[in-house]
């Protein structure tokens, strides 16, 4: 880990703040902070989404997120601070469901690390999202990055 580099992980029902995440990864020797904000869209396949509900296997989600931080530090050793926040419970449309902030001395490491972080989160962290529509049955979504989603890569053993 870069000298005094911090990993901050939180799963919370509170509204997320991009300013707070950005401030938490700021450091004097870093010339770059990259942020990813995942927000909820108001439609899916022509249906109007009124809200999302998130659920997590919390201890394992925290473990997988800390593994992601560790992988990031192996691939991009110059990364300084990492903050990953995921909201649980009800998330109204347009609000953030996930915010990732990463700081590094130069921009390409933090930009690449943020992309890796969200891509890996979607494939490995045990969190689930249910879309509630204006009309029609709610639906549990499936990330295409997840190996065992419909059409995923894991071979089925009968």
């Amino acid at each position, binding site marked *: 880990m870069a000298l005094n580099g911090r990993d901050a992980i939180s799963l919370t029902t509170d509204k997320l703040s991009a300013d707070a995440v950005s401030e938490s990864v700021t450091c004097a020797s870093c010339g770059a902070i990259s942020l990813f904000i995942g927000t909820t869209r108001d439609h899916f396949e022509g249906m109007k989404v009124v809200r999302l509900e998130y659920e997590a*296997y919390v201890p*394992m989600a925290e473990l997988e997120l800390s593994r992601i931080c560790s992988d990031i530090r192996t691939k991009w050793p110059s990364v300084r601070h990492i903050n990953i926040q995921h909201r649980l419970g009800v998330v109204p449309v347009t609000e953030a469901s996930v915010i990732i902030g990463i700081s590094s001395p130069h921009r390409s490491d933090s930009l690449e690390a943020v992309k890796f972080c969200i891509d890996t989160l979607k494939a490995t*962290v*045990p969190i*689930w*999202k249910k879309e509630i529509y204006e009309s029609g049955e709610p639906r*549990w979504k499936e990330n295409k990055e997840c190996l065992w989603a*419909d059409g995923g890569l894991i071979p089925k*053993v009968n």
Partner: protein
Amino acid sequence: MNTEVSVLYFAKSAELTGLKSEIITVSSNVTSAQLWQHLEEKHPRLTVIRDQVVLAVRQEYVPLSEQPLTLREGDEVAVIPPLSGG
């Protein structure tokens, strides 16, 4: 040898069983496929997700297969439908 483990249900699997968790007793060298079979027998509605599910045993993902699990008393097994975080 029989072992008592807890099973956690999430997302669609919790809706299908009506449960967040339960305690079950299985052989300690049960395979993941056999453990799933046991859960399907108790909760037939789980059949609909059979092809899109993995387990997590002691917080490590395990696909359904013929590999024995080596369960220990008090282990936590979770039913993991396709992920949708982020």
